[in-house]
């Protein structure tokens, strides 16, 4: 009989994940400090971190909660725009980025979380795949809203419109600044995102998510996933459990958006489209669902790979497709998993008192 993850191992397992993050951080940071890092390598770091966070967050819904969400890009979009707008508006008043940026991260996360909550209220009461449909629509709507949103300030104060016509009819007066300019998005977000901050945020997020999964609230979410009827019979408020996971996911999706946008000079809403949501979903599914570390690794590999393969030109997508297929086989094949368990099992001290398979 196969052995499940033990609880003690689960706690140990968490520390392996934290250690991995710390080792990567130290390794990459010293590489950066050495000055040997190429421009394209540096350019990949922060987006990779942001996508890892977005994928881990989505995993709370897809893997842990067993619901399908197709709108993770929408939450990133909310976080990105809210965070960038906040940083632009407060750049003068809060000069220190080490104070401003955490506030932007928190604000972007909270606003995205509120959107998650509002979506969750009607949808999570229902059974079935309604969440997929609604989150899909949400992602598209959010993208469209920010793509048409104009926020500017002039001598008359802050002006908000959903079409540039409003500014044509009544032009901006005097000292005017655009914060969000429709399809051109936000320009000049302060570049507060650094690799170090990204890694700290990732570590905190990993602690929160993994600890959550080992708590009564986390168990309630997984129980509702495994068997809704039994969960209710055992006193689990299924709607509340699913809501908790979904709002957490939206929050961290928003935070990922803030990390992402503070690395971009020019932020546009069309970046956060349906394809991005699906891409993040692919990261989660190929990461083995429900396994945070697997999701981190698959995101890193699948996000960086196309860039690395750029040199191969025409063969790039072919190789990418092959890697996708191989990863799918690896994470979903019983025999491969059994082999992996054997390998990891052999490394663990044998426990006495095992009576499995007797019946």
């Amino acid at each position, binding site marked *: 009989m196969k*052995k*499940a993850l*033990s609880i003690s191992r689960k706690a140990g397992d968490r520390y392996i994940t934290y250690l991995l993050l710390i080792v990567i951080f130290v390794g990459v940071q010293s590489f950066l400090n050495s000055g040997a890092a190429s421009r394209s390598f540096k350019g990949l770091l922060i987006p990779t971190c942001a996508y890892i966070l977005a994928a881990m967050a989505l995993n709370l819904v897809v893997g842990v909660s067993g619901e399908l969400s197709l709108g993770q890009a929408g939450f990133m979009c909310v976080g990105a725009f809210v965070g960038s707008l906040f940083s632009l508006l407060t750049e003068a008043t809060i000069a220190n980025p080490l104070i401003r940026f955490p506030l932007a991260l928190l604000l972007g996360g909270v606003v995205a979380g509120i959107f998650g909550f509002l979506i969750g209220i009607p949808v999570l009461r229902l059974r079935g795949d309604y969440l997929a449909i609604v989150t899909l629509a949400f992602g598209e709507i959010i993208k469209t809203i920010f793509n048409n949103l104009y926020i500017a300030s002039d001598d008359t104060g802050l002006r908000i419109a959903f079409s540039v016509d409003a500014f044509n009819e009544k032009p901006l007066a005097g000292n005017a600044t655009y914060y969000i300019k429709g399809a051109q998005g936000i320009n000049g977000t302060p570049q507060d995102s650094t690799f170090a901050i990204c890694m700290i945020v990732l570590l905190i997020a990993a602690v929160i998510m993994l*600890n*959550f999964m080992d708590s009564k609230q986390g168990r*309630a979410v*997984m129980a509702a996933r495994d*068997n809704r009827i039994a969960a209710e019979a055992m006193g689990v408020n299924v709607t509340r459990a699913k809501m908790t996971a979904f709002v957490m996911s939206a929050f961290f999706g928003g935070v990922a958006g803030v990390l992402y946008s503070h690395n971009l000079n020019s932020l546009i809403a069309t970046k956060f489209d349906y394809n991005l949501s699906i891409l993040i979903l692919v990261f989660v599914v190929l990461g083995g669902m429900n396994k945070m570390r697997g999701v981190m690794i698959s995101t890193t590999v699948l996000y960086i790979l196309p860039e690395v393969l750029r040199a191969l030109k025409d063969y790039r997508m072919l190789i990418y497709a092959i890697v996708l297929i191989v990863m799918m086989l690896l994470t979903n094949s019983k025999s491969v998993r059994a082999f992996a368990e054997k390998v990891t099992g052999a490394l663990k001290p044998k426990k006495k008192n095992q009576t499995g398979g007797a*019946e």
Partner: protein
Amino acid sequence: MALLETKDLSIQFGGLKAVDRLNLSIKKGQLYGLIGPNGAGKTTVFNMLTGVYAPTSGTAVLDGVTLNGKSPVEINKLGVARTFQNIRLFGKMSVLDNVRLGFGNSIHYSLFESFFHIGRYRKAEREATEKAMELLKVFNLDGEKDYLASNLPYGKQRRLEIARAMATGPKLLLLDEPAAGMNPNETADLMDTIRFVRDNFDMTILLIEHDMKLVSGICEELTVLNFGTELAKGPTAEVLNNPRVITAYIGEDD
């Protein structure tokens, strides 16, 4: 005063009267059997008692509280826990976590404390784990605490379901065919365990079972259902010798 009292409890599915005017009266500490041929309506009674189905008419009262109109979650909090005829474990969770889930409403800490495993989290989790391990010992599952529930053999899955139900701290335990799929040895063990649970946890148990050896071995009183109606009720030996009951069971293999 009975712990569970149903009065003319009935439910209709379209034209089918699945349960028709059932009157149960189960005293505290009793081991009570609900038997009857396939399709008699036994599981449907459990579903009404636990809020899965709403009765068409009649009432069910637990310890003075009417159960009608309450949700499964509320009814569990009032002290009714159950197992399922078709095992419904949390398959991708460990055996220990299946049981610890049951303590969810009796341990208290906030989501924030969960995020960082601080404050009340540590003590509450330690206590829940200890209590869960005690329960697992009672059901002889402590050696498998780290297995995924879905990897357990059938007989142990049935026992785990009872352990999980016990973790919610019920006054009344509903067992739906707890011995189904067990071999005679396992069934004999299960009978001991059920008696042990009743005696040591002052539990009141209502069980559905087709295995007559188990029924005659541990149930003190029985109600026999046939096509949704009460065929007989009373002390076990009396009911099992009732000619009408014997007739209803002819052709049934137990």
